[in-house]
């Protein structure tokens, strides 16, 4: 852990060099090339050597003499600006910041960074190399398994795309038929209403004056009875002063007088924390969120679709026949009902069409590999919250009674290795919330970590087989091979020395 974080790993190209210079990696470093990468040794071969930034020259005896001659550390891997090369035979070589050399902490697995004798660092390179190989092997295994899953996922996605496309074309046909029908019903209804209106007008003129007084009185009363009850409830709540919005109102007036002691405490605390406001906002958003559910209604599934379409066509025919009949003969109620039903149906169809068209507008990846993520949500319970990430839609944080929008879907980023959600709920004194979901190869699609590195800037990690790419495995295998070689070499050398 420490190594990978604090050390700059070198490319494996230099492995052969290390092995050739293996003999000099003995525990007591007395050579002047200490901490200098093998490929740089040539640079330091002359009698007079230049500082790399060109500011100065130094002699060969000044190389690694524990005195910093160059301002950039050229002459001394242990000087500020310099880098110290650890051979780490048996594992990957590494370059350390000069600050790590002889600081009493073992950084390199071969211990070569602590050469002043104040601490003894065991050589753990072989062991570390083995561990690295093992974990690398596991990674390759996961990828290999993941690649198969990924293929399945893509197959399923293909089928789903085909199914959705078929549904869309079916719906479009249906829309044509039902649309026509609704138009006709509409005409019929209007016709009926016109006639009805004429009759009504005549009747009313006759009765108008008599009835007016009796009719208006009671209705008005009935209307008013509900209202005062509502207001008085609200007032009570306000007077008791327990609702958070009450506190906000008071703060808005910039008057803290008349607050209870607890309220005043909370109010003042909220200046630092902004908590009051968030409660308020979460509440608002809940109200907004409620409306969404109403729009969606399931449309009959594909199997019964065909027979249903036939039925409509029959009905349509039936009404066409009615058209020619005189208005008086029609069952007005029945027609109105049909009209309403079919209008509703039409709107369902429209809504489904628009949702499918909307879906197809998204970018699901080069092979539509993310197609099955649509309409799926991934949850993670962490600390006090449940996080819900719905790709192509939004991401939320749920806790207690409140729900906070972390962001709405924007797009994939970083060649489909990142999902981006922005424009979530605004933070008090801060930015709109947003979320970045990093995608990694894993055998299951799951959300595994949620973080808030800065206030209201969220970062999550998601594993999925979709990210297990074949080309990566080849790269990994090559790397593993070279790691193995290093280990084998080292073991052979070690044996020889014995």
């Amino acid at each position, binding site marked *: 852990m420490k190594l990978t*974080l*604090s050390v700059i790993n070198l490319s494996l190209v230099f492995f052969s060099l290390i092995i050739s210079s293996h003999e000099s990696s003995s525990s007591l470093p007395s050579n002047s090339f200490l901490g200098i990468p093998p490929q740089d040794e040539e640079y330091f071969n002359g009698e007079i050597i230049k500082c790399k*930034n060109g*500011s*100065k020259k130094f002699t060969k005896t000044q190389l690694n*003499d*524990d*005195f*910093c*001659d*160059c*301002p*950039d*550390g050229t002459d001394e891997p*242990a*000087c*500020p600006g310099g880098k110290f090369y650890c051979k780490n035979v048996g594992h990957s070589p590494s370059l350390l910041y*000069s*600050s*790590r050399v002889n*600081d*009493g*902490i073992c950084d390199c697995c071969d211990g070569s960074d602590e050469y002043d004798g104040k601490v003894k660092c065991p050589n753990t390179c072989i062991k570390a190399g083995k561990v690295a190989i093992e974990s690398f092997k596991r990674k390759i295994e996961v990828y290999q398994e993941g690649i198969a899953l990924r293929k399945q996922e893509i197959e399923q996605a293909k089928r789903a795309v085909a199914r959705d496309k078929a549904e869309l074309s079916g719906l479009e046909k249906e829309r044509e038929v039902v649309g026509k029908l609704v138009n006709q019903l509409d005409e019929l209804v209007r016709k009926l209403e016109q006639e009805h209106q004429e009759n009504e007008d005549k009747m009313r003129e006759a009765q108008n004056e008599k009835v007016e007084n009796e009719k208006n009185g009671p209705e008005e009363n009935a209307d008013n009875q509900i209202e005062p009850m509502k207001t008085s409830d609200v007032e009570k709540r306000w007077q008791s002063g327990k609702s958070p*919005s009450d506190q*906000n*109102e008071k*703060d*808005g007036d*910039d008057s*803290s*007088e*008349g*607050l209870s*002691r*607890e*309220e*005043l*405490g*909370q*109010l*003042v*605390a909220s*200046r*630092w924390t902004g908590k009051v*406001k968030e409660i*308020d*906002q979460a509440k*608002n958003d809940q109200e907004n969120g409620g409306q969404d559910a109403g729009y969606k209604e399931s449309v009959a599934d594909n199997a019964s679709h065909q027979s249903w379409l036939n039925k409509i066509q029959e009905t349509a025919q039936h009404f066409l026949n009615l058209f020619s009949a005189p208005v008086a003969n029609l069952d007005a109620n029945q027609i109105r009902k049909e009209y309403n039903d079919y209008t509703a149906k039409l709107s369902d169809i429209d809504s489904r069409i628009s949702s499918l068209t909307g879906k197809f507008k998204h970018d699901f990846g080069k092979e539509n590999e993310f197609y099955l993520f649509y309409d799926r949500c991934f949850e993670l319970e962490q*600390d*006090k919250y449940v996080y819900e990430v719905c790709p192509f839609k939004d991401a939320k944080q749920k806790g207690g009674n409140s729900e906070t929008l972390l962001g709405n879907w924007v797009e994939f980023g970083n060649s489909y290795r990142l999902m981006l959600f922005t424009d979530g709920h605004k*933070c*008090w*004194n*801060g*930015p709109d919330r947003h979320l970045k979901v990093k995608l990694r190869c894993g055998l299951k699609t799951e959300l595994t970590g949620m*973080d808030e590195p*800065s*206030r*209201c*800037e969220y970062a999550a990690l998601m594993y999925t087989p979709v990210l297990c790419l074949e080309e990566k495995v080849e790269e990994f295998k090559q790397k593993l091979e070279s790691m193995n070689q290093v280990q084998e070499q080292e073991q052979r050398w070690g044996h020889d020395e014995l």
Partner: protein
Amino acid sequence: MKHLAFLFLFFLTSQTVHSWKKDEFRACDQTPFCKRARFRKPGSCTLIATDVSISDGDLTAKLIPIAEHDHDQDPIKPLTLSVSVYRDGIMRLKIDEDPSLDPPKKRFQVPDVIVPEFEGKKLWLQSASSEKLDGNTGGLISVVYLSDGYEAVLRHDPFEVYVREKAGKRRVVSLNSHRLFDFEQLRVKKEDEDWEERFRGHTDTRPYGPQSISFDVSFYESDFVYGIPEHATSFALKPTRGPGVEESEPYRLFNLDVFEYVHDSPFGIYGSIPFMVSHGKSGKSSGFFWLNAAEMQIDVLAKGWDAENGILMPTEQSRIDTFWMTEAGIVDTFFFVGPGPKDVVKQYMSVTGLPAMPQLFSTAYHQCRWNYRDEEDVENVDSKFDEHDIPYDVLWLDIEHTDGKRYFTWDKLLFPHPEEMQRKLAAKGRRMVTIVDPHIKRDDSFHLHKDASQRGYYVKDASGKDFDGWCWPGSSSYPDVLNPEIRSWWAEKFSYKNYIGSTPSLYIWNDMNEPSVFNGPEVTMPRDVLHLGGVEHRELHNAYGYYFHMATADGLVKRGDGKDRPFVLSRAFFAGSQRYGAVWTGDNSADWDHLRVSVPMILSLGLTGMSFSGADVGGFFGNPDPELLVRWYQLGAYYPFFRGHAHHDTKRREPWLFGERNTALMRDAIRIRYTLLPYFYTLFREANVSGVPVVRPLWMEFPSDEAAFSNDEAFMVGNSLLVQGIYETRAKHASVYLPGKESWYDLRTGTTYKGGKTHKLEVSEESIPAFQRAGTIVPRKDRLRRSSTQMMHDPFTLVIALNSSQEAEGELYLDDGKSFDFKHGAYIHRRFVFSNGHLTSSNMASSTLGNSKFSSDCVIERIILLGYTPGAKTALIEPGNQKAEIELGPLRFGGQHGGAAVTIRKPGVRVAEDWKIKVL
């Protein structure tokens, strides 16, 4: 409805731009004692001194009114007055009600601020001489010896007290020269009287009625006055009223948790030190300290304010008059004669104590944020410092690390393994600091609350019940830390056994100790709340945070069996807080004005003893743009206390988050601090021994240089470095005044600049103006490390800046960096002198301290000579007659390109030994 809610949000948001809620705090004219006092006219005091005598080594007298006036008022009872004299030029004046006349209540005297040693410095007066003023025509005065060259004077009629020079009789500091003295005596309430005071819905019952005190103090040979922190304003205190001055509020001393304080205001914020220093053209300084912890208001009066009152004052001396008002307590005042600025500071510190010697790690860089969320976050931030090769020493956890704001606990989900977390940091030589505030959650399942309430250790409300106020945890109570027994109980809570999850590498942060009470008047505790022995909160308010800081620091000492120096950062403070640890300037804001005002604030703190102070780097509220953040790191690297901190609504701002270039600039700024740690540590020791602050005003080093008197853009770090911040965006130039007659060397390039002159300098983003004064030697450690811990054995560099006579001198102090062994002699203190081409190192350590020894194998690897004519090739080292090469070497390492200078390569001499190096 939604509309309304929206409007509302808008309103709140727009409010945060100017959020200082001025109306919530009492102005002087809303504060009856202040309003009354400010209305008084010079000459209205009619008290005279009678029964003047010497008793118990003091000059004592009674103060009585010259004539009965106003028969409607209560008769004025005599007050007792005593003048005492202490070694090194300190006069103490006490005035109180006469206890033998049975006042309704004993007036409060602030305990445990004056150090016990102080009484040992008392000079027992034997006699007083009587003189007549103005060649025997004026009033009678009694004169006593004060110190060599100074006398203390009590004038009888009208009563006046002052200090004067013996030769020439020139005055230094005087009290009641304008006869503004007023002492409201405690009395029994009359039936028709209403003593209650109401402010914004809060009622102060004021059961003891009016009891305020006010008086005028004059400083002679004075052009400016300084001190009386804490205010966010200029260092030289601007007049608050008088001719040609826009009348402002007086400087208020009342410890308050002010949300988003503004950068230029006499308004009271987190701490209070009623100590003022004056300085003038003569190069002389004097000081005045009033030991009183009640609310205080101080006017600085513009010249000519007293033109029409007919009071005769010595006219041949320049003078600044001030007016001091307090709500309660007694007159217990200290006059410091100086005459140098450093003398005044030393005199003040012989009363209130010397600054604690900090642990070495605490003088390095601290990384804080509200809040590092969990163990993973901590690990991540820690490793990022390493990844970017930026050193830091301490990682801080704010209130969210606790279980529901119950201090001494950990949030089990976020911090399940606190000990392991601390151990991981400690493995890299790093420490952790957690926050412990004084408000204790009123929760019966919380052991601390249960324990405190059962023992009756909480502050009581006016009706005698445990005071219940609102703070972070909600309903909270506050330990009565005025009481030594309760302080001792509190201190025990820091033992490893009691503070579960704490390890030896954990230190403490005391916040909110003004105390902050969210639902209290002015966001603090009501004044009629009761402490030990019926003391009202109004009488000790400004010292509450001090006692809390004291108890916490004592806790850390006890925890380590007296072997580990405590580190406790406090927000509130009072006179004497320097003995317990560091303070910072509270919740500042991320803007250029706050960067600018941090310098006068830190100078004021240093001048009044609080040497170990700093401002939040980056600004607590708001998001600094990268340029401001970089400039803040460049300046903050020279603050005595160097910590980055941020509010939880701000974006992350750790130094690596703003692109490679800015990372490099911030890294460079932090590294400068680390290379200078040996110098800073030496300065902290100087403060610990003499009270002279680490960061000082220019005039403290150049007392006669008038151009420096009101300069608070630049400051001195010790006597050797001068630093000036860049306080505006995209600055291309900066005007820097370099005081004195000698030259200055640019710290980065070595370029020489003349002293006594303002230089218009080109400014780059790479650094802020910083110079080494000719004639000084600064010790450095140039090898960079993860933290100060790993620098222990690294070799030193000495930077010798030669003056016009090719001479220089400096010091180096080192010890184990953590224990108290230095008190018994376990330290190394060297004096370096360069003259006649020879550099000598000699011992400065006192031989009387004890037998404890500190040894160091550290050597000096490099000696840089600034201002030395090149040409010499070798240096000869004695003893041993070894040779070292001399060549041109770099001035700095690892960072941006710097200059080159004559360098003695590898002298290899040990810091602990005597030696001499001759340049041949």
